[in-house]
């Protein structure tokens, strides 16, 4: 395969990881919201935890993004 074409295909495949991370972040905030609507008084205290979870899930998507960028601009 042409190395340049392989590079772009690889970058495109790496971008899939960002979409998968989006599922994770959506799951976290969706579950947080459904829990918060059932017990609104406890929601404020758990808000930072939702963000920590979202940040950790998002970080993996960012890894995928960095892999795509490295393939596009560095390799």
């Amino acid at each position, binding site marked *: 395969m042409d190395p340049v074409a392989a590079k772009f295909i690889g970058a495109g495949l790496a971008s899939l990881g960002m979409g998968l991370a989006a599922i994770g972040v959506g799951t976290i905030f969706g579950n947080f919201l459904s829990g918060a609507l059932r017990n609104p008084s406890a929601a404020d*205290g758990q808000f*930072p935890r939702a*963000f*920590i979870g979202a*940040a*950790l899930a*998002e*970080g993996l998507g*960012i*890894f995928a*993004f*960095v892999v795509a*960028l490295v393939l596009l*601009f560095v390799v």
Partner: protein
Amino acid sequence: MAAGGGIDPIHQFHITEIVALKPFGLNLSFTNTSLWMVIVLATVSAIMIYGSSQRAVVPGRLQSLAEMIYEFVASTLTGVMGKEGMKFFPFVFSLFAFVLASNMLGMIPGSFTVTSQIIVTAAFAVLVISVVLIYGIVKHGSHFFGLFVPSGVPGWLLPFMVLIEVVSFLSRPVSLSLRLFGNMLAGHIALKVFGGFVVALIAAGGAATIIAPLPLLLAVALTALEFLVAFLQAYVFAILTCVYLNDALHPGH
């Protein structure tokens, strides 16, 4: 060069030297990154010094801003670490203020985003992890390494759990730095790409010019989103710093 209209979305992150300083083969030049770090530092210092110099009972705008930032960081910190975590307040507050100010100043068109350079965010992350390690080992000695040994795990599983905990600890500085860097980089590239669409559509002329406002509207919406991300990433950086420092303060599960 990107394909769309000769607009290079990466160009905005290029580091240029303003004052070249190269003693003994070391490159210590004053670059545009250094200039914007100085600007960020001056902005934060100005807000905090002028904001706290009034000491009015009914705060003015600047004083409310300074108090809001203080209250916000203090409540985040005590929420994660409890009252004794306040000894780390100056550290966490400086990190939060610097990251927030550089993210926000980076949103000014034509400015330079310091946090979009991975060396800057990596230096912050290494600083945080160094503080965690040094404080944890000085305060708790070998007991600090109990962090890697989860309690209530069956014996045969323990080696694997320790391995996983060590790897997860080692990946913390990597993910901490890459998260901030990646978010800033991705957001600014997206803004530039959508701006490039507008230029390319207008340059194409004819029917393409009519739909040129569509990417412009999207770029405006993206700018609003970027302001949210700029704040959110500073918050996430601060709260993860608190979580990691909490491990040094109270090791063991």
